[in-house]
């Protein structure tokens, strides 16, 4: 079983398809959720074999506590974008968020969601964080944040590029936020203690490093390590 951060959802689904084609005998299953919760669950005996986190800090912690058997390795770097389903986000900049016609800005929770942390950093760097405070609404995770915007509750949101590339959302343009404004969203994975002896786990870990997988990831807006 794979545990994966929710921003991986669409990309990983496609990778899995490719993997199943390549190894039809392997049984792989994926569960998406927030990285923090999954880390807690793994620490408490969750039956996950590989864990793809949205932030490398979590796998590092697992490794430190002995719940993971491999060193955390970076498999992708995420990007955040401005996205809206009401206006043309590609024409907007972070500074524009202070405009009066934008009443609500949705971000993922900056306390626990990695994308939220980065969004906050970016807004700070752009110098609008303080001013934006009253407009900010928080989503539980990046997917929920996207839904808040999609439902129209928020005018605009900062979401993962990987979600903005998803067909439903891709109808509306997005504005890629300069990755210099925030720390990189290094996404790391580990094989857990439970998965240590499973061939499939290792095989899948290897598969993630292959071109098929990297190509899919890139298509979904992830930057791949070492591809710059």
């Amino acid at each position, binding site marked *: 079983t794979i545990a994966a951060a929710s921003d991986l959802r669409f990309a990983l689904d496609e990778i899995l398809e490719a993997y199943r084609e390549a190894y039809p005998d392997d049984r792989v299953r994926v569960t998406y959720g927030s990285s*923090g919760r999954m880390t807690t669950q793994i620490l408490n005996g969750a039956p996950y074999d590989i864990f793809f986190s949205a932030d490398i800090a979590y796998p590092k912690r697992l490794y430190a506590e002995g719940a993971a058997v491999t060193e955390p390795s970076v498999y992708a770097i995420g990007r955040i974008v401005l996205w809206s389903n009401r206006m043309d986000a590609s024409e907007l900049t972070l500074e524009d968020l202070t405009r009066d016609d934008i009443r609500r800005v949705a971000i993922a*929770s900056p*306390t*626990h969601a990695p994308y939220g942390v980065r969004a906050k950093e970016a807004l700070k760097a752009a110098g609008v964080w303080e001013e934006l405070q009253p407009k900010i*609404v*928080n989503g539980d995770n990046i997917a929920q944040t996207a839904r808040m915007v999609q439902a*129209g509750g928020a005018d605009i949101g900062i979401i993962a590029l990987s979600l903005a590339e998803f067909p439903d959302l891709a109808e509306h343009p997005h504005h890629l936020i300069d990755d210099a404004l925030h720390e990189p969203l290094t996404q790391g994975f580990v094989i857990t203690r439970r998965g240590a002896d499973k061939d499939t786990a290792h095989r899948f870990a290897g598969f993630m490093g292959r071109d098929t997988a990297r190509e899919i990831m890139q298509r979904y807006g992830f930057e791949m390590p070492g591809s710059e």
Partner: protein
Amino acid sequence: MLDLSPTDWMAIEVTLKLALYTTLILLVIATPIAWWLANGRGSPGVRTAVQALVALPLVLPPTVLGFYLLVLLGPAGPVGSTLESWGLNHLAFTFQGILIGSVIYSLPFAVQPLQQAFANLGRRPVEIAGSLGAGRIDRFVTVILPMTRGGFIVAATLAFAHTLGEFGVILMLGGAIPGETQVLSILIYDHAEAMDFDSAHRLSFGLLIFAFAVLFIVYAINRRFDTVRL
């Protein structure tokens, strides 16, 4: 001592306000519904259907319910857009919004115990009060209310406690805006997800103590006024 940050205090304030308002609003709304369900006119089929309907908010996962409410109350939804066309604000991500969400979500907890209490009462006390010259409202206040106090207590405490703990609907609909829609449960959740268990434990503990105290006092008072029924 629990030393709490200003965010914590704000969350506590919002939580209390939300729980209190929700409970009060629920009692006001649920009482006539429950009365009608228990004693009302109209075909029993219709009443049964309404009774089942009232329980439905429980069935959906809170975030899903929250999503539907967000669509409904947001600027694009029927309620939100109507409000906007009147020059008012839509309700998504506002305190009023999460209040509506809480009320809807906790409605069954208020209606069902009340309905049961009303049904159990029988018609004799009402008849007695009527024969002594008490009109409908008078009867309700001086006879039905005190005699079904137990049902009201159950309804109020379930609604109150449930609102304290509710977070799925509120998260979706409220967006965790400090001082406005960020309630304690969301804050605790937030801390827990961020693996900041210290803060989570501290707040949870405080919340539990507080809830326990409130419930204990309410139940103790209720017990004191207990009348034995023959």
